[in-house]
């Protein structure tokens, strides 16, 4: 089935959010379907994180609404969050616990019922080195922490995965490994929203790209158009155009 024919998992409709006089997000709309990877591009302050916080239910939209697998986070935030997994730029885990213990704790809190071996298999599935499984997270690299984050998403069978700057600070090899993991997740039907500055990863991995600047969605690309476009030029064109306004 083509992505176009699949159902929307994340729907953002006419979303606006102000902080006092500052318009952080200004009437943006987009959807992320099952198995789709949407790269949300934009400079710092473009409104990407505010949009993510609205999707996660940490912020309530002033105008418009968000829908996660049929649930409005502003109405039932806990139920909406159960449908998704969130991996921030710095995956926040308990430093004194091992990767396995973190996975078990986070997953069980989310209501996942699996055996220790099944959790171990999930860590193997995200290519976390076996020797690291029982080491404290404090000794993990950023890439390893992200793998644990993805394992949590896998464990709870999240319908949507929200990534905030996932590849910043990763070396090319880790970035490549991470790309493979999220593509595998997308193939399993997970809708992925990835806020990033990494134009290369966006061009390589995303099925659709949305460029945000000054709270607005200024350009969208879908399918082959992404590969065929000089993304960097397009991005800079929009960002510069906005800054000269």
């Amino acid at each position, binding site marked *: 089935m083509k992505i176009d024919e699949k159902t929307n998992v994340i729907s953002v409709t006419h979303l606006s959010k102000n902080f006092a006089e500052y318009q952080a997000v200004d009437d943006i709309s987009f959807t992320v379907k099952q198995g789709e990877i949407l790269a949300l591009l934009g400079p710092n302050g473009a409104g990407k994180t505010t949009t993510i916080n609205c999707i996660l239910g940490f912020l309530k939209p002033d105008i418009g609404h968000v829908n996660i697998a049929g649930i409005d986070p502003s109405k039932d935030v806990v139920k909406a969050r159960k449908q*998704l997994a969130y991996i921030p730029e710095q995956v926040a885990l308990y430093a004194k616990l091992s990767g396995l213990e973190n996975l078990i704790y986070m997953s069980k809190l989310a209501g996942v019922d699996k055996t220790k071996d099944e959790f171990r298999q999930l860590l193997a599935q995200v290519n976390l080195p076996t020797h690291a499984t029982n080491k404290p997270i404090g000794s993990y690299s950023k890439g390893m922490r992200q793998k644990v984050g993805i394992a949590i998403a896998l464990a709870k069978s999240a319908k949507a995965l929200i990534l905030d700057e996932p590849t910043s600070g990763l070396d090319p090899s880790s970035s490549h490994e991470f790309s493979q993991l999220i593509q595998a997740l997308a193939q399993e039907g997970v809708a992925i929203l990835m806020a990033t500055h990494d134009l290369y990863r966006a061009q390589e991995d995303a099925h659709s790209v949305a460029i945000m600047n000054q709270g607005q969605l200024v350009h969208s690309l879908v399918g082959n158009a992404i590969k065929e476009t000089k993304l960097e030029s397009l991005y800079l064109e929009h960002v510069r155009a906005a800054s000269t306004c």
Partner: protein
Amino acid sequence: MLILTLKKEWIESKREGRTLWLSSIILLLLACALLSSWHSYEQVQTQKQQVAKSERERWLNQGDKGPHSAAHYGVYIIKPDTGLSVLDPGLSDYQGSVLRLEAHKKNDTLFRSIQDAIQMQRFGDLNPAFILQTLLPLLMILLGFHSISAERESGTLKQLLANGLSPKKLFIAKVMALTGLGLLFFAPIILYIVYSLLFGDNFSAGRSALFIASYGIYIFIWALLTLIVSSYAHTSRSALISLLVIWALACLLLPKFAIESAIQQYPTESSQAFQSKLESEVYTPERQQAISKFKQDTLAEYGVENVDELPFAWSGAQLQFGEQFANKVFDRLFGQRQMQLQAQSLHYQSAAIFSPFIALQTISMSAAATDLAHHQLFDDAGESHRRLIQATLNGDLKDNGLASIKRNKSYRGDQHLWESIPDFTYQYPAIAQLMSHYGRAVICLLLWLMAMMSLSYFAMRRIENEGQP
């Protein structure tokens, strides 16, 4: 979820090492305090039983003598202790445990442990109540101040919430984990009480239930307070500082301030001043006038002109009249002092609205019968017994002394008379009957619980709003 959170907190704490060290220190202190209090209690109980027995024998075997001489010879009665006084000695050290009952005088209790205490002991006595009331909240603060704030700082709070965890469940699990930890330290005390209830004596189920319930609520209040502050604090450092300030105010400064305020508001005289006031108010010209009037009335009643013509020994009647006259003075002056002391106690209790420590301390001492109210009850029972002794001895002299006096011989009572005076036994009333003395503290403790539970709602909302600017 609770077990999951407990397990996770336990693993983290174990690896951090801090919990283990702090817990070990408090447990060691608690064990030392419990053992030392229990040992001292056992020793004192044995001594008290021996003294009570020998005192009765001394009274019965005092030999033949005038009843009034026996009244001055006096008896010593021993204040009983409840088993809970091992856990909370309360004011015992300041109140004394032996009361001398004699003619014409109402004495204060003797043998106050504090008089024998070295200076360092006066600074602070290590007993289980002190550890549970003062040090346990501090331990709970040190173990729980970062429960939510550290999650906020490290970003795990946002991660947990984004993972679909309800803020309410998270807060409750953390509170239960900290409460569980607090109760873990209280567990040895509960075991001791249950064991003593089953196999020991001097333990009342009602008092034990009140004791356990009030400490349970107190621990829960501190767990809620710690988590509330941790939920609101931006950093763990500010959470710790805020909680330490609250602890110092609630457990150290406010109680001191409340005591000072109670003394200022309801002042009492020094013991010496009170004793000299007693002397001066009993032996007054009015007393002589009252005795003269009683004599005239009695002579008139029997239609005689001289006390030697009365059909009973006048000295016995006169002594009893003198006792009754003095009793009225005692009732008035001791009553005034008791009222002042009770007012001080209630004033202090009122400060429990600002400190759960004061509420618990009051309830705990009441349950252990080591507070002022119980001491006054014992004092009243002792005074009733003193009056019974005086009435019996004076009555015997009045009824049976005439023949000896007419033979110009002094009347002497014998063992039969001494045996007619029952041995003093006293048991404290059921704790429910003393509700008026500690009810205010119970209400304050429950108000604290309700206030903390209400604030918990806002703390959960604060967690829910995580991520908002």
